[in-house]
């Protein structure tokens, strides 16, 4: 059986960039407020200095420029970042079921967020989330060392136990303190939601994804070396422990930022690398950037669905990514079976 015919990488790359830009432009036209797409684009052009006048009211202008545009940008950044982290985690742990949250990051972030919320500092939840993610990561590394050193298996085990501990603590806090509507807020956080994204969030997410993502992209070839284990990678000249620590650190940092803004959005980091592998194979030099592009596009449309499908109601975007992600995962598994 031959490998699947891989589309010319150049075509794929260009195609995905075009699709991403088109997605950004189209997605901002969707939303509960009844604004015509042409008015949306004119307003954006006005803010970019291309057009003299804005055709809509002050409030609608704010809706477009202060709500929709940053939100779509955050979605793109979060999707790209999570897909990148998922791909890296799957390579580092040599486990196809790995996702960015493996090392306790999302459980820790959720705990941090819930603590801040219940303490009355709801507006500072992102800070709490980031601190929680960092603490969980540190704890996971500590446990890994106690278990004898940073191997993939030990890291996964440590991550699972830290996640379980953080989740239990979160559940306890919810049970103990949450009254009334705070259940809803917490649930929305745990499922992941991009609502309320503002320009500072967009800048944070995009900056993190680009500045952390670019160096990670350069390690693509070295990540390939991990395919057959640590000894093989070392024999190819890769500094295995250092690279592993650097990549883990980068992934943890980026995931921490993303989760602190969007909550624990699931399935993106897990599914997107698998879909891309079906088309491009496992060479990370290709897999990493293509995963980022596809992750961004997927997230933009999932979030658009989350905020527009049931307008004026809003769903947490994590529900959409799960509803779409799970069937796609099954399809990917079926295709894997057919290929081998």
């Amino acid at each position, binding site marked *: *059986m031959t*490998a699947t015919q891989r589309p010319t990488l150049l075509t794929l790359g260009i195609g995905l960039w075009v699709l991403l830009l088109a997605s950004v432009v189209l997605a901002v036209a969707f939303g509960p407020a009844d604004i015509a797409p042409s008015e949306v684009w004119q307003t954006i052009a006005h803010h970019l200095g291309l057009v003299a006048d804005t055709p809509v009211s002050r409030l609608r202008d704010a809706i477009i420029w202060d709500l929709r545009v940053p939100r779509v940008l955050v979605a793109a950044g979060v999707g790209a970042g999570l897909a990148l982290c998922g791909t890296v985690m799957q390579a580092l742990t*040599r486990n196809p079921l790995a996702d960015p949250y493996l090392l306790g990051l999302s459980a820790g972030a959720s705990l941090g967020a819930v603590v801040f919320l219940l303490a009355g500092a709801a507006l500072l939840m992102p800070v709490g989330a980031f601190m929680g993610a960092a603490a969980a990561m540190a704890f996971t590394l500590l446990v890994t060392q106690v278990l004898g050193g940073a191997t993939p298996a030990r890291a996964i085990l440590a991550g699972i136990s830290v996640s379980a501990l953080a989740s239990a603590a979160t559940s306890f806090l919810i049970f103990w303190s949450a009254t009334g509507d705070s259940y809803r807020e917490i649930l929305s956080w745990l499922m992941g939601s991009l609502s309320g994204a503002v320009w500072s969030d967009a800048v944070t997410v995009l900056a993190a994804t680009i500045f952390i993502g670019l160096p990670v992209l350069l*390690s693509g070839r070295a990540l390939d070396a991990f*395919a057959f*284990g640590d000894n093989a990678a070392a*024999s190819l000249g890769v500094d295995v422990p250092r690279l592993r620590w650097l990549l883990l650190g980068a992934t943890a940092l980026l995931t921490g930022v993303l989760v602190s803004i969007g909550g624990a959005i699931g399935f993106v980091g897990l599914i997107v690398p698998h879909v891309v592998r079906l088309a491009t*194979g496992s060479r990370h030099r290709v897999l990493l950037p293509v995963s980022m592009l596809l992750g961004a596009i997927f997230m933009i449309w999932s979030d658009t669905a989350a905020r527009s499908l049931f307008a004026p109601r809003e769903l947490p975007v994590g529900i959409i990514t799960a509803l779409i992600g799970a069937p796609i995962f099954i399809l990917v598994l079926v295709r894997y079976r057919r*290929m081998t």
Partner: protein
Amino acid sequence: MSGLAVSEVSVTAGGKMILDGVSLSALPGQLTGLIGPNGAGKSTLMRATLGLQTLAHGSIRFDGADLPAMPRRDRAKISAFVEQSGTTESHLSAQDVVMLGRIPFQSVWQATPSRDDEHAVAGALEAVNMTGFADRLYQTLSGGEQQRLQIARALAQQPRLLVLDEPTNHLDVHAQLTALALLQSRARAGATVLLALHDLNLAAAFCDSLAVLHGGKVVTQGVPEAVLTPGMLRDVYAVDTSVLRHPMTGRPILAYNAPSNSD
């Protein structure tokens, strides 16, 4: 001095001395086998040549250069390592796997394989007789084919030193013989090949020099006829053996005498 010179190497782990003053040499143009019971330290010695194991004592030199102290990329350009071919979840084609061997030569900024890279990969695939397999998915190949591909990957590094850790354990007879013949031909072409082996008859049939590792020390090194004596086999492996001669090659053939029920 050319070839691999391991001199008085000691390695400890967890307070236990795994290698205790190991010395052996592997000359270019020869297939040097490393044999010994399980747990004797063969894998540890292999990993030490890769720079993966800190030496408590001793030195490992290749062509006069200190191998573990070398920058890892430089080391990867002159020495290659092959293990028992592992499984991988990666969806790599045969070509991709062999191209991995070019990693030490590719800079981070290099977007596509260079002409040298393509050339080395093609040459490696030809050397293992798998040129037609380039587009096949690694996961769909048989065990023997996968092992030959791992050797091809090592060959793509164009190494002067090839270190292999029991690469044929899990293969069927035909695949074992093919792989070892391949390694022998690489040695004849000028490479230094150090090969840890489990099967003593294969070691006898293919190796030019055999070193026996036992209790963390090399107890003897020499040509197979000299090393594979009933006395050595009794001391090191605790087996009773009759040593025969191959009618055509003259190499030793070991016939194990089963322990009698009355013992």
